[in-house]
């Protein structure tokens, strides 16, 4: 394991130096609020590595609203009704201060956007251009159940670099060549002493021991889809739900989107916007038929997708990384851990 030692006094300088090769993104405190959102770091702006990030970093790679094509409907023009993809900036960027499980979530998103048959260029190009610099979670809170979802507070599976805050300095565990390149650009090249690897291992164990929330889905794996689908507990689970999009929008692994054309005069843009399976019109047919017209059907769809369909389709665990955002932010306290327990019983 190669570990670079970054003295906290050298942190700001290194970040500035890395701007020569990378655009920087990181958590930034929202004005007048006590949480942060991932944004592009302005000149001299530093990423806040301690603040709670309300929206997941998926918005850096996959923005809430993105222009896919531009067009003109002016019949006098030669290019009338021909769609053109706008130039998109895919210069290298570094996303700093992402938690390890948020990074693991990108691997889940990748299964959707990067398939053998089709690749979504908007997502893929952005993803390829990104270097993920994670910050290990030393003090997981009570809604963090990441060790149950094949990731964890020190997991490196989605990261290029894992930063571990030891107090005086950061130990930067190099995970990939992309990560190594970033460290070099930032001028952080002093290798940490021989016991760094052990220290990281120790801190990892301590953090994982602090995790108090666990879920299990062994039985969900063995039950059939129809058995879970037709179970009688969905009425109770779905009653409180108000069918807003909060859980899906804050979730780092949710990927559903909508395609909409918006016109002004005879020019327009085709947008890709986040959408949510919780919204009533998500599956509405033009004829008026709606396969998921009741709240119960939509709530059931969300949990079945996350905890069963995804697992059956890819055989690689559930579509959740245990970040706890949906648990903290659901206005009516519908808790995926409780639902998982019910489905697993």
């Amino acid at each position, binding site marked *: 394991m190669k570990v670079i030692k970054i003295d906290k006094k050298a942190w700001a300088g290194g970040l500035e130096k890395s701007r020569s090769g990378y655009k920087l993104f990181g958590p930034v405190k929202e*004005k007048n609020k006590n949480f942060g959102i991932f944004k592009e770091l302005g000149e001299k702006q530093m990423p806040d590595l301690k603040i709670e990030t309300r929206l997941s970093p998926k918005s850096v790679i996959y923005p809430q609203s993105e222009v896919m094509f531009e067009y003109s409907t002016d019949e006098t023009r030669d290019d009338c009704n021909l769609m053109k993809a706008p130039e998109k900036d895919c210069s290298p960027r570094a996303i700093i201060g992402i938690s390890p499980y948020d990074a693991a979530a990108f691997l889940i998103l990748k299964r959707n956007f990067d398939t053998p048959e089709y690749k979504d260029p908007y997502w893929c190009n952005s993803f390829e251009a990104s270097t993920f610099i994670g910050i290990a979670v030393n003090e997981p809170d*009570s809604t963090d159940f990441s060790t149950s979802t094949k990731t964890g507070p020190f997991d490196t599976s989605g990261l290029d670099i894992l930063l571990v805050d030891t107090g005086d300095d950061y130990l930067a565990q190099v995970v990939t060549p992309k990560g190594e390149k970033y460290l070099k650009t930032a001028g952080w090249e002093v290798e940490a002493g021989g016991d760094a690897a052990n220290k990281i291992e120790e801190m990892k164990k301590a953090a994982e021991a602090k995790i108090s929330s666990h879920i299990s889905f062994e039985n969900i794996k063995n039950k059939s889809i129809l058995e879970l689908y037709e179970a009688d507990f969905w009425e109770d689970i779905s009653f*409180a739900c*108000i069918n*807003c*999009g909060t859980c899906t929008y804050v979730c780092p692994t949710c990927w559903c989107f909508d395609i909409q054309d918006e016109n002004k005069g005879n020019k327009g843009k085709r947008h890709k*916007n986040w959408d949510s399976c919780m919204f009533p019109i998500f599956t509405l047919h033009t004829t008026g038929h709606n396969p998921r017209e009741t709240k119960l059907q939509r709530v059931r769809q969300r949990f079945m997708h996350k905890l069963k369909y995804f697992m059956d389709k890819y055989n690689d665990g559930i579509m959740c990384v245990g970040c706890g955002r949906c648990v903290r932010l659901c*206005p009516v*306290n519908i808790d995926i851990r409780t639902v998982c327990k019910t489905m697993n019983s």
Partner: protein
Amino acid sequence: MLEYIDKIKKLSEKLLTEGKVDMIIGFKKGTMPMIHEPCIVKSPSDVNNLVWDSLCTINLANYLTDRKEKIGIIAKGCDSRNIVNHIIENKIKREQLTIIGVPCKGMIDRKKISSMFDQEITEIIEKSDQIIVKGDAFEETLNKQDLLAENCSLCLHRNPVIYDELAGELVEEQKDIDTYKAVNKIEAMDSAEKRSYFEDLLSGCIRCYACKNACPLCYCPTCFVDESRPQWVGKSQNPTDIETFHFLRAYHCAGRCTDCGSCVQACPMGIDVRAFTKKLEKDCFNLYGWEAGLSVDQPPPLSTFRPDDPEDFIK
């Protein structure tokens, strides 16, 4: 008010056993320290799952819309006014309901409390007028009065306005409250200040519609934001579209909003949605002397006409 829950449980059990209701709508204990989950109880043996304390913020009248069963509903002051609205607007029939009225001294604001502490809050203990806030490494006792949600601190209708049973003694209504203080402050701003204020206010909106869906008044089968023929509001993050959604929604609530605060509690991005709805509440009060949801016999001002209604805005 902590004694209310015993009476609520007893009443609920009685109503279910006697078959007077098919279900009780109330709250069950949440999995997080500062929130409870709305639930239905259908069997008398399950009434022990019900809870009632100062964290029962979300408006339960939201769950009544278009239901066909006989329902026992636990309603505090603002919830009961929304029930009146629902009855006037034909979303539920009075005969279907057995209302367990709960006098209320205000609900505490979990977001306000979170922002007061750096570390995670792991437990809240309520003791009459005090709230003990606990974390892994701290414990503090605070006055409940200081932690109230803003709409609760301004509330003039703490007692339920319609009920079949009461869970406790009626409480004294607050007096000498400057209800529209925050609205007046915004009204006093000049145009540029107001524009900047609203832009900042709405900058974090992610169009999750938690505010609209938590609101008992928003029950249109297809909301105006979802119409496509014609499409009124765009679906991308264009700031004009975001503002249109919020302003129009506030107008649709004019004369009907009871300031229950569910919209603010639901918003994941901490947007003070009440800034708009409170202004429209003030306008309705000043123009028509109207307060929403006080009596089932009075239709709201925007669906009736009185000869002496003000007309100075007609030029």
